[in-house]
């Protein structure tokens, strides 16, 4: 069934980017303040759920581009493999590796395997929730 409320549709168009931005924000700062991949992934899921309620499954699918299942697979791979590089450095699995970049005028940027891990978590959460919600929503008919 197509969307039924003009008002909701319009609101959703605004909310989606807003919430996605918020979710990325939560993801990146999670290591220092409340947030992190899981929370961020949930917020992103909420964004798409709003969109799904306003429009329908097909538009969400288009909007996501990546199939949720692939997203889950990629996320899992990312998370699982983030623990592997340390092995080649002679450490145990999941030993954190940190790369600190000094960018002129931007400041220090920390890239790390825990961050990669967190991004994996983010993708898995988003993919899983969307796979579940979309399957359910499609099954309603």
């Amino acid at each position: 069934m197509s969307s039924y409320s003009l008002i909701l549709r319009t609101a959703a168009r605004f909310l989606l980017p807003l919430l996605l931005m918020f979710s990325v924000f939560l993801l990146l700062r999670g290591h220092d303040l409340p947030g992190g991949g899981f929370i961020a992934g949930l917020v992103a899921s909420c964004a798409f759920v709003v969109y799904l309620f306003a429009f329908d499954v097909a538009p969400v699918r288009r909007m996501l581009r990546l199939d949720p299942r692939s997203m889950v697979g990629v996320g899992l791979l990312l998370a699982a493999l983030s623990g592997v590089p340390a092995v080649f450095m002679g450490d145990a699995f999941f030993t954190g590796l940190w790369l600190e970049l000094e960018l002129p005028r931007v400041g220090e940027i920390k890239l790390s395997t825990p961050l990669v891990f967190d991004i994996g978590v983010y993708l898995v959460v988003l993919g899983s929730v969307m796979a579940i919600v979309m399957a359910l929503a499609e099954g309603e008919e």
Partner: protein
Amino acid sequence: MLEWVITIAFAVMCLSLTLATLRLLWGPTLADRVVSLELMASVTVGMIAVYTISSGVSDFLDVAVVLALTAFLAAVGFARYLEKRGHGDD
């Protein structure tokens, strides 16, 4: 002074929560409960605000941000249910 205000605010919020709970339990329709749930979320936002001030830890405010988002989401979800399901089931 601020301490007193905070205490009063807490008390008022508690009262509000209680009242909202009453409506939640009474209903009579699902829509009433949803409205009550939403208000509870708002009250909780307020409560977290008060708590943030009383604790002096601003990080709690993040919860309020999320809460504001999710209350809306739940309401939309319930509304969708009502739309699809029709009357006679709440």
